[in-house]
């Protein structure tokens, strides 16, 4: 049993209106000091075996085919 994390973020050149809306709201709520916000997705995958290289390769394939749309998104895979 292992937990693997896949983080998926929009590529930097793609507009992120959600992140922007949050960044715009912050000063209105009295928060200063944040210059930009980007919003992405985080997936927690529980594996039924150990998070060895083979398993991680499999998760990378899952991320590339399903969890991220690589036309607009980048992803990273890591063990927690």
């Amino acid at each position, binding site marked *: 049993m292992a937990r693997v994390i896949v983080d998926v973020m*929009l590529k930097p*050149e*793609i*507009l992120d*209106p*959600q992140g922007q*809306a949050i960044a715009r709201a912050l000063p209105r709520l009295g928060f200063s000091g944040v210059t930009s916000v980007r919003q992405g997705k985080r997936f927690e995958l529980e594996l039924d075996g150990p998070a060895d290289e083979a398993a991680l390769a499999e998760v990378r394939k899952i991320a590339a085919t*399903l*969890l991220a*749309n690589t*036309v*607009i998104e980048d992803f990273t895979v890591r063990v927690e």
Partner: protein
Amino acid sequence: MSGARVGVVTFPGTLDDQDAARAVRHAGATPVPLWHADRDLKGVDAVFLPGGFSYGDYLRCGAISRFSPVMEELIPAARKGLPVLGTCNGFQILCEAHLLPGALTRNAGLRYVCRDQRLRVENTATVWTSAFSPGQEIVLPIKHGEGRYVADPETIAELEANNRVVFRYLGNPNGSLNDIAGITNETGTIVGLMPHPEHAVEELTGAPSLDGRGIFTSILKHLVNA
């Protein structure tokens, strides 16, 4: 009724399949229901991927449906020239399946929008738009939360240069790049658009226009002449 048979695909969570079938029937063709789990296109002459929330639109719109058995048949057939139309969720699926370039992302206004939308028909050389006149302004309903078309600059330039933008918004509802509402592949057989032509074919119901009919008469003409 002509002999033309237009497949209408139902995924789990597809919503506008009944409307799509009705619009096909009104145009004089025969709608053929296609089931996501069947690796079978039933010999149809063209395919309509209707709107909805396939697989709940979880993860990303169209991300899960694109891997269904019927798509495994459809993707190669479409590459070989089978006419395919995707509206709304269908457009999203076509992009996820890489049959069309780019992606559809969260509306810039961050809200779902249902409204009657003015559009301009930019390309009447596709099999789905030949019945329109170039530059014609039409009204079709839109109803989506993730319709903002994005692609990298080269792709956008490519689309513009080769007249592959088929529909453009007049009054951009979602922040799409270049006001893009619909695009086509290189050969004009595959078209994807966010608006809903199937909701604009009857006097009594749907949007206050009959402009959606153009889509269905176009494909029928193409199939009858083919």
